[in-house]
């Protein structure tokens, strides 16, 4: 990204009107819509180019329609609450600036796909976390722990650094076309979660996890569509991680 001459945080940024087209649904229904039925609704808000999509959603919720439901917390891309489909791509609303979206056209906001929609932009995350739990995402060791820390070289740590960045936002899994088709696939996040331990020199449970991922719902379902890598807001090379797990399975090398 190139630097702007005047800092947008303080400079005079012109306000503009942007339109958001939001795919909504109400579990209890409304006068016009059946319970759970999805429908589009447009909102217009005054915003600045440097505002995030999250700011625009907040403006709608706070000034126009308090019933708009979405999750959010940290507002700067580290908690993973607000993954949603914005202009047909999975992103974090708090990390997407309006100026990067062409605010001249309506901004399309939908819930992430492949998980059951609960209300507006909120989906049921339980199946996603269940897959994560499935791959045993915790350090497994044998024998007695040493008195001090387990030693690990910087190179060994670098081996899995990328996948430790995951914030469990589900942007990857819910962008994967294979996940959409059948829902039995663990999805890329679970593989990222497993990768973080499989390639940790301190861990001894790698074969247990590989066995799980070798199964029907595991890595072999991945068709290298790369949507996950493109969606990941933390810049994790998800497909690479998946490829490394496949490689470990086929060659036995780490």
């Amino acid at each position, binding site marked *: 990204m190139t630097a702007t001459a005047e800092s947008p945080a303080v400079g005079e940024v012109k306000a503009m009107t942007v339109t958001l087209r939001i795919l909504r649904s109400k579990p209890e229904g409304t006068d016009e819509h059946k319970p759970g039925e999805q429908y589009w609704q447009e909102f217009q808000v005054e915003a600045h180019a440097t505002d995030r999509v999250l700011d625009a959603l907040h403006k709608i919720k706070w000034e126009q329609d308090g019933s708009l439901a979405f999750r959010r917390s940290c507002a700067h891309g*580290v908690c993973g609450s607000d993954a949603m489909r914005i202009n047909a791509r999975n992103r974090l609303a708090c990390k997407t600036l309006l100026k990067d979206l062409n605010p001249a056209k309506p901004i399309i906001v939908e819930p992430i796909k492949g998980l059951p929609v609960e*209300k507006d932009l909120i989906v049921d995350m339980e199946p996603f976390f269940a897959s994560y739990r499935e791959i045993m995402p*915790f350090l497994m060791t044998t024998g007695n722990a040493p008195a001090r*820390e387990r030693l690990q070289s*910087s190179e060994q740590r670098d081996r899995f650094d990328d996948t430790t*960045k995951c914030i469990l936002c589900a942007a990857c899994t819910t962008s994967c076309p294979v996940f959409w088709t059948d829902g039995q696939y663990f999805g890329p996040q679970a593989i990222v979660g497993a990768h973080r331990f499989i390639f940790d020199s301190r861990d001894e449970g790698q074969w247990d996890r590989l066995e799980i991922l070798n199964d029907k719902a595991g890595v072999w379902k991945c068709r290298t569509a790369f949507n996950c890598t493109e969606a990941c807001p933390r810049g994790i090379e998800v497909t690479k991680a998946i490829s490394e797990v496949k490689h470990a399975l086929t060659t036995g090398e780490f």
Partner: protein
Amino acid sequence: MTHHEYDVVIVGAGGAGMRAALESSQRARTAVLTKLYPTRSHTGAAQGGMAAALANVEDDNAEWHVFDTIKGGDYLVDQDAAEILCNEAIDAVLDLEKMGLPFNRTPEGKVDQRRFGGHTRNHGEAAVRRACYSADRTGHMILQTLYQQCIKQEVEFFNEYYVLDLILDSDPQAAAEGEDVSVAGVVALELSTGEIHTFSAKSVVFATGGAGKVFKTTSNAHTLTGDGMGIALNAGLPLEDMEFFQFHPTGLAGLGILLSEAARGEGGILRNSEGERFMERYAPTIKDLAPRDMVARAMANEVREGRGAGPHKDYVLLDLTHLEPAHIDEKLPDITEFARTYLGVEPYTEPVPVYPTAHYAMGGIPTTVQGEVLRNNLDTVKGLYAAGECACVSVHGANRLGTNSLLDINVFGRRAGIAAAEHAVATAEAAAFPDDAAARVEGIVTRLLGTVGGSGTERVAEVRKVLQETMDRNVQVFRDASSLEEATRVIAELKERYQDVAIHDRGKRFNTDLLEAIELGFLLEIAEVVVAGALARQESRGGHYREDFPTRDDEKFMHHTMAYATGDGVRLDTKPVIVTRYQPMERKY
């Protein structure tokens, strides 16, 4: 309404809550209630590191750490607690490492350490490398690691359950000194259904985190609305030292998003519009690595005296341009990314606009070093515990040192978890759970939902905005009697208006509109306590700086503030500071 029975109920699944859960769930039937999925907790936003005198890279010991903590806290620290904090720090870090936390490593493969503000060698001689870290996402790694261990131990989580009330078996303010008051349980609202759940428990641990959203410019998450503190206050319990709020020097200007002190620990320099390294004037020895309160004031002062940068001269600059890009990428990847994403500034080549941002509540629910909650200066509530940012042990005194909070949540989270479980195991019967326990919450919900469709005239967002702007204007880095009185007046007015807020969402399920309204209630209560404490404390100490009383006054104010909510306003009391080895001295760096 559904009723649940557990031995231990933990409220909050941030660092403190999950550390407690790991201990408690090994010993007793434990439930963890959290309004966010555990991994969404704001511990995950912590960047810089976790202090422990491991001495992995240079000479260090826990005693120096104790001294720094006390001095950093401007001598308002309870020294017995600080000793526990620093002595148990080493095991706390090693425990995390054994759980799998991927710390950065030294060439020998040990946990690496970096410099951080206020942490010094041999009582202030020079900055020391004490902060154990994992790039600039230490909190993220802690949160993930603890969650992973909770999965391993099959800890029972109730995700997206908002705890809204605490049930005690008698009124803690009416009870005489020495009389027993016990916890009975909590009342929660399940977000996905809108249903009310009651949980009876022998022990309850509060670990609900901070309250940064009383301010407008803050590094805190939208969800850090001080619920735990507000609930305790409503239940008749005191809050301690709430006037001490930390303003972190380096928030992204205008946004408040934090750039860790690690940026300065790794060599970053603060400059004013003239390019001057102004911290040399304020803290000649450790300069940019002085404690946060001093740096934040220095920055605000530069701006006030016209040496601010930018078109409005309203921020200063954090200069990283002299650092190697590779070094930045290795040690500070995330925060430089924030500067690029949100300000469009390239930290390799340009200095980053920064300004102080509301960051950390030093105060909170008063506890003993076992995490037991105090209902006055002496008596604890049986079975009730608190840990983490919502609690006040007090190890941070008037100003927390960077990296001491991640330490706090691990040390005192663990202690509270053990104590809560042991209490539960030793207690045969939970205190009787009253039939009308949920009445208060039902009342609030019914009242707020009753406004759906028109009877209320105020918007939640509008009231909250006025509150936050008022707090930023009047109760920030610099305060004085008139600004605080102004804040008092506005808050009283807003509390009136709050009675009239309207909810727009008519649904039961995922009614986040309703919850924002309830959270606003907590924010208003907390703001009131913060301002009341600040008004009464006519001195300057740590994070609390009164322009009309610019010096520390140990004679009159060397004590903790204890604030109680009464029918009409806040009642203030004091509590002595525990001093073991270090007598107050002037704080110079």
